[in-house]
């Protein structure tokens, strides 16, 4: 038996010489194991994320090999660190420049809620300006927590319908943030 671990096939109909499943599941499987994150790291959570990318925790195991600092072809926006109100338009522009499908992960207390910085200059959570899929608690979260959040994103990606982004609910969500 080989040591190599392979992702299980999605549920489907198997027979001799063929395997049938739905396109949603096949696409979801492919997408979820080749998520391309865009790290938007502003503070200490960003340092913790560097450890997550290092060889010990190795985010690349999840197919997140291409960590790009450009919105081009990125799937997952990982916001790590305090977002000040002055940074908010920048973050929003980065999100707008990403192509669908896109997911957002708020890592740590600051990105999720403003954290300890309950002040006039800090955005009290990035969900005030862009929709968020997964929140990772902690201040800062350990790399395990970031990986857990990443795996939660993977679950979302696997189970998402291909047409979710055309649904009225999703359109309404984006409209709530003024994004069209």
């Amino acid at each position, binding site marked *: 038996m080989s040591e190599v671990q392979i992702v299980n096939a999605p549920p489907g109909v198997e027979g001799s010489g063929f395997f049938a499943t739905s396109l949603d599941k096949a696409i979801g499987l492919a997408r979820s194991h080749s998520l391309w994150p865009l790290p938007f790291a502003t503070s200490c959570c960003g340092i913790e994320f560097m450890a997550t990318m290092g060889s010990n925790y190795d985010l690349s195991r999840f197919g997140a090999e291409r960590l790009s600092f450009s919105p081009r072809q990125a799937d997952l926006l990982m916001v790590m660190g305090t977002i000040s*109100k*002055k940074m908010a338009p920048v973050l929003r522009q980065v999100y707008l420049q990403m192509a669908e499908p896109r997911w957002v992960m708020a890592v740590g*207390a600051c990105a999720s809620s403003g*954290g*300890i910085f*309950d002040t*006039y*200059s800090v955005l009290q959570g990035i969900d005030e300006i862009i929709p968020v899929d997964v929140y990772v*608690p*902690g*201040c800062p979260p350990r790399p395990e927590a970031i990986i857990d959040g990443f795996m939660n994103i993977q679950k979302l990606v696997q189970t998402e319908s291909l047409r979710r982004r055309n649904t009225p609910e999703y359109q309404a969500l984006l409209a709530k943030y003024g994004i069209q």
Partner: protein
Amino acid sequence: MAALNNDILLENLTGKFGQAIQPQADEYGVLTVHTDRDTIIDLLRYIKTDAALQFIYLTDITAIQYPEKESPIGVIYHVHSLVHNVRIRIKVFLPAGDERIPTATVLWNGANWMERETYDFFGVNFEGHPNLVRILNVDDMTVFPMRKEYPLEDPNRVDKKDFYFGR
């Protein structure tokens, strides 16, 4: 040239400006004088250009607020004589509701950003400043956050206690 110290400096300034400056207690060995907004630029120009003083380095411009005082907001200038290694602290207290003071950018270009910051946080209006806009906070902010006009956070709130954040 005799070594410059606080006594000689104060004597020099008093001889030049007389009653327009009021010396205060020297804190931390730094001469502190209070003056008014009509004198401040002349005073700064004098200590910068005078051959015996040469306070050529503007360390900082900032402000302070004592809410209980009649003139609550004061602008503070720290100037350093690199030649003599002597510092001076000049304070100008401004009447409430009329926080105007002439700009020091006519003497030091470095005063530009310092005054913008002081305007940003204390709302002091530096007249004659080439570009008096906020520098650190967002442009659409309507308040001056360092003024002591805002209630402190409720000390009894529990929603941001450490244990919620795993600390």
